[in-house]
């Protein structure tokens, strides 16, 4: 089995009935965690490190450690290290950044019905908590991270969310907004058994950036940005597209970097485009029209009108045309679809250091597809 990453194939071969899910996840984690830019060139440049890495990451076909942090302790060949998150200058010590990122996946069918919508959220954490320990025996590092950390200086953190199940369990009135999170996945460092018992999210964060938790909601979401398109074929040689885009969220939020990708016929040429906002350009390589709007406040509606010439020779046989959906990309900062809120992030530190949590919210478009044309 193999996966492809840019121009490199990562392959695993087995004589046995091995755990396929585990091996493919492993291959992906090799790419994701350790090589930021993995391609043939960087492999050649670092083949010694790569050999060492693979040696530590897998033994006799069994994945061992894949966390960059631990691996970097085993492998001291720093000389041409290409990757691992360069720790920023320690100006910000003892800070925890928490980004709540939600992506909205939506699928709208030809009749304009939302047939599928869900929200995938992630709590992305970056910590710069100082390690207070001067350890020397590198062989014991993982002990340190997984076991001994509690007593050796990595602070324990507790996270509170407006999770309905938790709030109800604590007997608090669910005043305001409480939300149902459907499927929650936690990072390695979170104590799953504890969460199962009393839904407390407690963990000892590794240093650096990681996804603390991901969750999913499949409640019906109103499409945040609605796009309607009308295609009129005036003759065999000319096609006119009229597009309306409407933002359907509160006025105090603003979507940024909105990109609407409209499919156009393969043989379109000579575009003539007018928009009421933003800029639009024809991207023949994708057979699409890209409409970009830098800032799109809530409750607004913008229009686009485009005309194309078609090559007049059309095949007699009705071959089916590529029916690509309209795709939309956007970001809405300081807003979450689910209404998730971080109620608190407690950092329990015995040494008396004060760590500051910073929380940001953002909503993005994930697989946002409207099959309208």
């Amino acid at each position, binding site marked *: *089995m*193999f*996966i492809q990453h840019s121009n490199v194939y990562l392959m695993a071969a087995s*004589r*046995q*009935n*091995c*755990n*396929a*899910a*585990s091996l*493919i*996840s*492993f*291959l*992906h984690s090799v790419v994701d965690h350790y090589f930021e830019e993995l391609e043939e*060139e*960087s492999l*050649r*440049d*670092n*083949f*010694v490190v790569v*050999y060492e890495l693979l*040696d530590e990451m897998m*033994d*006799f076909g*069994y*994945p*061992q450690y894949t966390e960059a942090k631990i691996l970097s302790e085993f492998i001291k*060949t720093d000389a*041409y290290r*290409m990757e691992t998150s360069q720790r920023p200058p320690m100006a910000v010590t003892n800070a925890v950044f928490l980004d709540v990122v939600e992506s909205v996946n939506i*699928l709208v069918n030809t009749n304009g019905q939302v*047939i599928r919508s*869900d929200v*995938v959220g992630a709590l992305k954490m970056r910590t710069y908590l100082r390690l207070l320990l001067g350890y020397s025996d*590198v*062989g*014991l590092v*993982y002990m340190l991270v*997984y*076991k001994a950390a509690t007593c050796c200086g990595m602070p324990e953190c507790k996270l509170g969310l407006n999770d309905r199940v938790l709030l109800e369990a604590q007997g608090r009135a669910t005043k305001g907004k409480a939300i149902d999170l459907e*499927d*929650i*996945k*936690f*990072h390695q460092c979170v104590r*799953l*058994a504890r969460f*199962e018992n009393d839904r407390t999210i407690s963990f000892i964060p590794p240093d650096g950036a990681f996804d603390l938790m*991901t969750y*999913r909601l499949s409640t019906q979401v109103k499409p945040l940005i609605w796009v309607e398109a009308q295609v009129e074929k005036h003759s065999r040689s000319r096609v006119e597209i009229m597009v309306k885009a409407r933002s359907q969220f509160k006025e105090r939020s603003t979507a940024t970097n909105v990109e609407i990708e409209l499919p156009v016929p393969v043989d379109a040429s000579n575009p003539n485009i007018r928009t009421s906002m933003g800029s639009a350009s024809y991207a023949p390589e994708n057979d699409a029209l890209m409409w970009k709007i830098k800032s799109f406040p809530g409750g607004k509606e913008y229009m686009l009108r485009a005309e194309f010439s078609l090559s007049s020779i059309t095949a007699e046989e*009705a*071959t089916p*045309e590529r*029916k690509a959906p309209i*795709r939309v990309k956007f970001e809405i900062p300081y807003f979450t679809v689910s209404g998730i809120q971080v109620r608190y992030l407690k950092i329990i530190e015995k040494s008396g250091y004060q760590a500051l949590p910073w929380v940001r919210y953002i909503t993005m478009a994930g*697989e946002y*597809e409207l099959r309208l044309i």
Partner: protein
Amino acid sequence: MSGHDSKYFSTTKKGEIPELKEELNSQYKDKRKDAVKKVIAAMTVGKDVSSLFTDVVNCMQTENLELKKLVYLYLINYAKSQPDLAILAVNTFVKDSQDPNPLIRALAVRTMGCIRVDKITEYLCDPLQRCLKDDDPYVRKTAAICVAKLYDINAELVEDRGFLESVKDLISDNNPMVVANAVAALTEIQDNSVRPVFEITSHTLSKLLTALNECTEWGQVFILDALSRYKAADAREAENIVERVTPRLQHANCAVVLSAVKMILQQMELITSTDVVRNLCKKMAPPLVTLLSAEPEIQYVALRNINLIVQRRPTILAHEIKVFFCKYNDPIYVKMEKLEIMIKLASDRNIDQVLLEFKEYATEVDVDFVRKAVRAIGRCAIKLERAAERCISVLLELIKIKVNYVVQEAIIVIKDIFRRYPNTYESIIATLCESLDTLDEPEAKASMIWIIGEYAERIDNADELLESFLESFPEEPAQVQLQLLTATVKLFLKKPTEGPQQMIQVVLNNATVETDNPDLRDRAYIYWRLLSTDPEAAKDIVLAEKPVISDDSNLLEPSLLDELLANIATLSSVYHKPPETFVTRVKATAQKTEDDEYAEGSEAGYPESSAHSADGPTSPPTSSSNDAHVGATRPASAPSTSPPAAPVPDLMGDLLGMSNNSIVPVDQPSTPPGPPLPVLLPASTGQGLQISAQLKGQDGQIFYNLLFENNSQIPLDGFMIQFNKNSLGLAAAGPLQVPQLLPGTSVAILLPMVLFQNMSAGPPSSLLQVAVKNNQQPVWYFNDKISLHVFFTEDGRMERGSFLETWRSLPDSNEISKDLPGITVNGVESTLDRLVESNMFFIAKRKHSNQDVFYFSAKIPRGVAFLIELTTVVGTPGVKCAIKTPSPEMAPLFFEAIETLLKS
């Protein structure tokens, strides 16, 4: 800082090897290190640098960890090609394994385990022993895996040196990573061992469940996979286990989630409380759905597994069908699997939405996907009676688009719908006929022809339609020819007018004289005979009511499904095949002799790649359409309606006379004279050469007793014989010496045989494939059975004491029993005599209520002993045979043998 290592790849000067040699022996450390890097670079791109072995090994004694790792890497690669020189490295290994730095200790053990040279392996044992008890967990966890490596090289050594015990001790280690690796090692060893090595007791269970909370994600996978083999004692224990595993569903790593699901599903089988089960199902749904937001390759693995899970527990995802709707950018192999699952989850409640999706897919560009979507609509129609009409109307809409392959696919599925709901939707036939001319694929053509034949009485111009196909009859593929033949016969029976009568003459002529396809010819002859003897009977048979077909979307056998569910997340669950069918090394167990039947089953390839994906999972389960063909002809062979078979030879004569055919089948000679050896190659298939043969044991030697009879018109000579690989490795001890065989003569040969010459891998089977050739004829292949009793040796007699001792020393898992219901033991004495003659030695006899229990011993070459217990009531049918043997995989062969012995 970017790397500069790439320069090491670019030395292509002449005399590279001597140059490297010089550098490797340089007195400067840096230069040596660079040289080693160059060597590794050359090795990486596939150049042979094994000649530098000594020089590289000389660099091994270094303080520099990086350099040491590189040298070790080199050793792993080339030790096998230079086993004698590899010994040079042993000293350093042993020294390194005692280094104060745990990284180096671990490195030494890890590397030695990877060098598969016997001499090195011997020296590995002591360091390994020490490292298993090392203070540092990093070393211990490496040593644990090393035991698995060693087992792979030399299993006996591991057992003799007691490493298994040491690894088992590591399960109680206080470091979770060590525990996880020990579990992984033991699981692997268990997989390759026949003996029970790693049995999870309730004690280890609780230990492992605790370790589960603390070890790395990969370690969790090892532990969950190992635990999923544990059989809980009762529902309560199962519930407890499940309770401790469910938190794993929340893990971010997909592999952990899938392994947890596997474990929960296993334990759920025991849980009786419906509330608990329902609750668990509810808990498993969201994590399974989330797997679909992972990378496409993982999605594919997840989907293949979900496919299995919904077959067992459809409720889990019953409400989640929407998540399987395809996204525009999904790779094709993911789309195909999603489609498959959508069909499985389709129900009366969601069918409207599903149909809308299918219709959308049917207008996409990827041909395979479109076809599968169309087929999916048909399968839904067959599955959901109430939705059939809606499905048909969608299909008709699709036909109207007039995209050729959509139309063809639609016709194929509509044929199945007609089979499922006869006499319901015939009104659409007219629409179908419009597309008749555009059909160019065999399956679509055959389907259309089937429809015409089946509804010939309702289609006014059925004869014209069929006639248009007849012109090209000889050029059509076999599938279409068969269908044309059947359809014409149906037409003739329904409308016995002149036109069809002429048509049938043409078809039968084409299908008998002008074809060399035996299936077609045979079918045509059957019809011909039927029509010429009794047209009424023909009508009863050909136009008989057809059995109703059903939806095949749940096509896995329950037992296979069980096995696959136990293998969730593994390759087996992705292939939908049991592991033995693609893993050669897997231990052979007695129960699994029937796996051959799976080998051909389900899909052929494993399309992990996007490039490949089209053929593997797409290969649509064609059985529904096959069913239709089989169904259409099945009545012909249905015993209830078919006329007595007796007059067949006469008819054959008539038939041959009628068609002026001169293919004269050679009559099988009446029972061959001489000893009644079983006929393995009848004269009718051997162009007149008949071969009878049987294995025979005589004076401790094995012979193949052969009888050749030449019934052909020509003398045959130059006989040779060859045996295919078989479970006992039987082969001819010398050349086959058959004199020239004149027509009408025969010769008997006793061919001495040897054992263990060409052993076949895989579970033992009694199949012996033989090939015989001569100078005049093509090579003949035939199958014989290995009867084990031929091989029982004379030294198989055991004393009572040693019998008892052996019986006790063998674990219970080596005891296998079988009922032989059809066998009666009449005279005890005579039976015992007969058995002794075959070297099956009587040991003792006792009475157990009204039954007699006999004990015997037997031995086959290589000292494999069988301890046999026969329980029966003398004079009444039914014998229970239980055996204990160190090689339980031989049991099925043994049972066959004893059955023959007792019967004779």
